[in-house]
């Protein structure tokens, strides 16, 4: 089992680089200022012309070369450690989407926060539903982009219990800075209990779409852009949506429609077909993300939101 975490690895390499850098910076600055004072024109009216000094120049080509190679090597070995997933790591799928994360566990749990057990390495398989995102956990000094159509990975060893911030660090649009979540590290027992309980629920919902409308729009990330209370966020509010008259642009032409079942279904699957006036065409198409039953459930739920 691994015992060092990526935090330590990063901090060691960083410290090494920092020391070299600070020493060099001080040496250069001090020498420069010393020369400026010592050879001030008042004190030193006649300059000496020195065109070059081969030995000296070779020295300051060789020493930096050695230094940078050392820096490179140290960074590389740290990197190798950070890219080699230890065996037996727990796998969690992480999906980025505008603008929230979804973590999916082997037993079907879907969560907006990353819950992991203390002391057990975790491997994250990362992808994106729409544009680039990047999963960043500063406490563990790790980050990797979520690229649509591709799977990238990260691993880390949760070595302290507690809650840690999780950011999206690749610019992804208006709410990039609120695509923030948490890593929650709990003791193994507590984690296992949660895993079992939530897992049971997930197993049921997986088959019968038991998730009720509200949970559904939260889990699918709809609430990242749509409000339930009538306030306008990135997209139009869900409140009072059903039956509302909506002004939309369909392939360049403006028209008015009534938000009925068909319209809503179409808005979810192909949002770019009818773009609501006053909003950008940025809603990610939900085909493949939301099943037919789920859409029906959402529509049923929206009907009730007066």
């Amino acid at each position, binding site marked *: 089992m691994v015992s060092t975490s990526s935090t330590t690895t990063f901090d060691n390499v*960083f410290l090494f680089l920092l020391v070299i850098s600070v020493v060099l910076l001080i040496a250069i600055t001090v020498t420069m200022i010393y020369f400026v004072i010592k*050879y001030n024109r008042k004190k030193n009216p*006649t300059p000496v012309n020195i065109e070059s000094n081969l030995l000296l120049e070779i020295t300051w*080509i060789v020493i930096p070369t050695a230094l940078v190679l050392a*820096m490179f090597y140290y960074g*590389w070995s740290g990197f190798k450690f950070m890219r080699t997933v230890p065996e037996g790591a727990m796998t969690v799928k992480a999906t980025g989407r505008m603008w929230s994360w979804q973590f999916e566990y082997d037993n079907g749990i879907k969560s907006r926060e990353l819950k992991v057990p203390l002391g057990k390495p975790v491997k994250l398989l990362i992808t994106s539903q729409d544009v680039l995102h990047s999963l960043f956990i500063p406490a563990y000094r790790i980050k*990797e982009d979520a690229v*649509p*159509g591709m799977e990238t990975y990260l691993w880390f060893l949760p070595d302290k219990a507690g809650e840690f911030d999780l950011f999206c660090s690749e610019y992804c649009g208006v709410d990039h800075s609120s695509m923030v979540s948490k890593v929650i590290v709990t003791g193994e027992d507590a984690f296992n209990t949660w895993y079992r309980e939530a897992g049971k629920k997930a197993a049921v919902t997986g088959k019968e779409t038991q998730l009720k409308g509200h949970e559904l729009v939260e889990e699918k990330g709809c609430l990242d852009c749509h409000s339930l209370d009538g306030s306008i966020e990135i997209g139009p509010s869900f409140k009072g949506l059903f039956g509302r008259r909506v002004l939309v642009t369909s392939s360049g032409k403006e028209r008015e429609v009534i938000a009925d079942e068909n319209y809503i279904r179409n808005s979810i699957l192909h949002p770019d077909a009818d773009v609501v006036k006053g909003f950008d065409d940025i809603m990610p198409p939900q085909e493949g993300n939301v099943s037919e039953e789920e859409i029906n459930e959402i529509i049923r739920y929206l009907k009730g939101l007066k």
Partner: protein
Amino acid sequence: MPDGREKKETDRGFWKYEGGKTGLLSWIFTTDHKRIGILYLSSLAVFFVAGVTFGLLMRLELIAPGRTIMSASAYNSIFTLHGVIMIFLFIIPGIPVSLGNFLLPLQIGARDVAFPRLNLLSWWLYIAGGCIALLSLFTGTGPPDTGWTFYAPYSIKTGTNVSLAVFAAFVLGFSSILTGMNFITTVHRLRAPGMTWFRLPLFVWSLYATAWVQVLATPILAITLLLIIIERFFGVGFFDPAKGGDPILYQHLFWIYSHPAVYIMIVPAMGVVTEIIPVFARRTVFGYKAIAFSSIGIGAVGFFVWGHHMFTSGISDTSKVIFSLLTFLVAIPSAIKVFNWVASLYKGSIKVDTPLLFVIAFIFLFCIGGLTGLINGTLATNIHIHDTHFIVAHFHYVMFGGTAFAFFAGLHYWFPKIFGRMYSEARAKLAWFFLFIGFNVLYFPMFLVGWQGMPRRYYDYLPVFHTPNIISTIGSWILAAGLAMMLVNLIRSIKKGEQTGSNPWKGTTLEWTVPSPPPVENFEEIPTVTHGPYKYDEN
């Protein structure tokens, strides 16, 4: 040069000669490299102030978490415009088109650049590009909000006016290419008799190396930007995984240009620095050839390190290792230069005037920027600090602390040559002080907050990051004060400054042998060069 020639020319040299046109026309249709240099200088200043205002607004927004003065989408547009203006309209053209245009022919003993009309065209393209960029603000569906990197697929999906902004950058790329072609040909064809390659002033060497990078790297940007436009209009799908494309390929293409571009920004600045040190130390530079070749070396190796911007993007680990290694190699020529500059102060006879003060600030700030660049380039550490404010601090240190400070140094140094008058030394020093202090107060805290994990392009942040952000914002005001002082001093001195002779600093390069301001034809007679550029033996 106390002969009769100088008296005759204290009339305003090229400022007066209008070439058969009048007023404004004599400027915007001039083919005189000096007038074009001035045109560029004034347009750069306008865009710089615009960019800097956006910078100030961003800092104001970031003074506290949550909404302070603008909405999230406004913030996103503002950092995009800040980046686009600063990169494409200020710092990439920057030194070459203004100081370079003015001084390159003078320093090699020529009457003009090789293609004076292309030079003018290049300015016109620059202005056209600038106008198109501004147009993207007021037309269509709102200002672009992608960041200056225009990463796909977001740049293809967003509803904002990206196409126009991208087209602006495309036009500016053309302008940059024309300047590069012009300078290479000029250096090859128009050197005065006796001006051998190793008698060229080192500023010319730096411009020459830069010009090659401009010519060879910019086309890749052009095609990349064109592809973004094509994607947006025709949906070909090159960067859309749903259609088989690969978004990472966009990043490759973008950085194939944009990493070399950072050397387009810094290498001319290094040239300015190399020019100033010997004059104020009254001795020759240490290691002429090493400095000359390191410019070429930086330019050459700089082409193949672009992957260090993509260490967390999902590229293969093999290529990460190679890109990291090459990144370290490109630091070596920079190190050579820094050491040679410091050595050039050794046993000099140093007078600390404003240009030298800026140079000293440059060396200090560039070292911080460069050394943190190495931390960025290290595989293990990049993973954490990538796309945080640590990076923002790094590039402001190299771009603002490096290039812009060297630019300011050059402006002060060549001010009497360009305008025939001297600025107020006391005020200049005061402005320098504010700039230097303000700069560090503004950007140093960004290293800390970035190291703590605050991602960049964040409109809103968690309360843990509050303190450094407040300090940073206060720093931006100090910096603004310094900048305003400097600009006011310089602008005021154009009219009011004391008249100077042709060579107030006792410089030894050719531009100091002609009157200030230089006459239209530069040299009454093309000089014959018999020795290197920094010959201080005789005094």
